[in-house]
């Protein structure tokens, strides 16, 4: 039990627990999402890279030590919503006890990008795509349900989860799907398609309970439009 190396972690959610501690939902690079008890009532920050020393049973981890592992990411204005959206997605969908090193890197890079003012939409789409892959349901752009490679000239329907079905009356153009496969999110039509597809695919996993953070992207004052 001693000498376990600290793990890279972000706090997804923190809830006061008893008089003197926190219950933390952590996004860790090597074990996915875990819940850990952390004694100490000093402030615990979201979007702060930490090294967490964890021990205990699988279902009851204790965080012995939480050490700052880099500058906190400052997400202000509408970027604060986007950051909450990322955490809601991870908290709702990220599995427990899986290696999530690659997605962890994407999460960190997405936050850094948001902080730096990089256009948010492509960052979010890329993150959503990687999250679906982490879930084992990455969208399959290589071949359709029948095992045929996608063709630029063919039209398709989306099965709502991760595959495409060739259909002459399908609403999706093969050409755009191929552009999306290559991450050409700078093209408006591709970006729109990605938003539409990934939202459907994520809803498949989220089930009935919709995302609270989506509500934030709706504004009522013209000219103050936000993005999601």
């Amino acid at each position, binding site marked *: 039990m001693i000498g376990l190396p600290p793990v890279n972690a972000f706090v997804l959610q923190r809830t006061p627990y008893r008089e003197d501690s926190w219950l933390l939902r952590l996004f860790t690079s090597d074990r996915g999402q875990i819940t850990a008890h952390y004694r100490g009532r000093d402030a615990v920050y979201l*979007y702060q890279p930490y090294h967490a020393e964890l021990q205990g049973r699988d279902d009851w981890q204790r965080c012995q030590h939480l050490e*700052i592992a880099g500058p906190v990411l400052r997400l202000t*204005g509408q970027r604060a919503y986007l950051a909450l959206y990322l955490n809601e997605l991870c908290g709702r969908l990220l599995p427990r006890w899986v290696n999530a090193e690659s997605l962890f890197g994407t999460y960190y890079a997405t936050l850094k990008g948001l902080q730096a003012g990089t256009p948010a939409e492509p960052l979010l789409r890329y993150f959503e795509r990687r999250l679906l892959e982490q879930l084992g349901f990455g969208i399959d752009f290589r071949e359709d349900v029948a095992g045929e490679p996608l063709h630029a000239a063919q039209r398709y329907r989306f099965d709502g989860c991760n595959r495409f079905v060739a259909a002459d009356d399908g609403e999706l153009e093969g050409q755009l799907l191929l552009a999306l496969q290559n991450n050409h999110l700078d093209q408006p039509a591709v970006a729109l398609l990605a938003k539409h597809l990934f939202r459907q695919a994520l809803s498949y996993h989220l089930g009935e309970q919709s995302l609270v953070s989506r509500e934030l992207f709706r504004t009522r004052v013209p000219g103050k439009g936000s993005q999601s």
Partner: protein
Amino acid sequence: MEALEQLIVALRRLPTIGPKTARRLALHLLQRDRAAGAELARSLSTALDTLQPCRQCRQLSATELCGICADDERDQQIVCVVESLDELYQIEQTGVFNGRYFVLNGHLSPLDGIGPEELGIPQLLEQVRGGGIRELIMALSTQVEGEATAQYIADQIGPEVSLSTLAQGVPMGRSLNHLDPATLSVALSSRVARQTDAE
């Protein structure tokens, strides 16, 4: 012993109370200090019967409109938005604020299922649209959730209402080596130029 179990279950619904603490409290109130138990039951029941959220600002009040909202001497068009009654009391203690409040009872926290509706934000926006507010002061937590909450409110209202946020940084009377890095970095990035008498 069903009544005892019911009491323990009820106590466990309080924040930070676990099963062991709930049992200890229940036994204390029923065995060690029954007078305290009776007093607690009485005062809780009275408070529940007589106090409700103020129709306008959501702070606890014995009347439909709380004392602050009903006070003509205060500027009812300047509204300070706070996360909890604690902050309201703290600001009141300073004695420097002469507007009224709006109490959210929390901040946006999607993973806890707390969105704008749960915070009464539609109610606040209705008051803004009704034209009764000319300035909103956001006195919310400096963490991301507070920032998102302030931004959400800002996004929903037009330019006719002026908006401000409390300044952030080094607390008075604190030395720098007691600050956590996040506070220090905000204090640094929002530094202000020194006033000089030279010019």
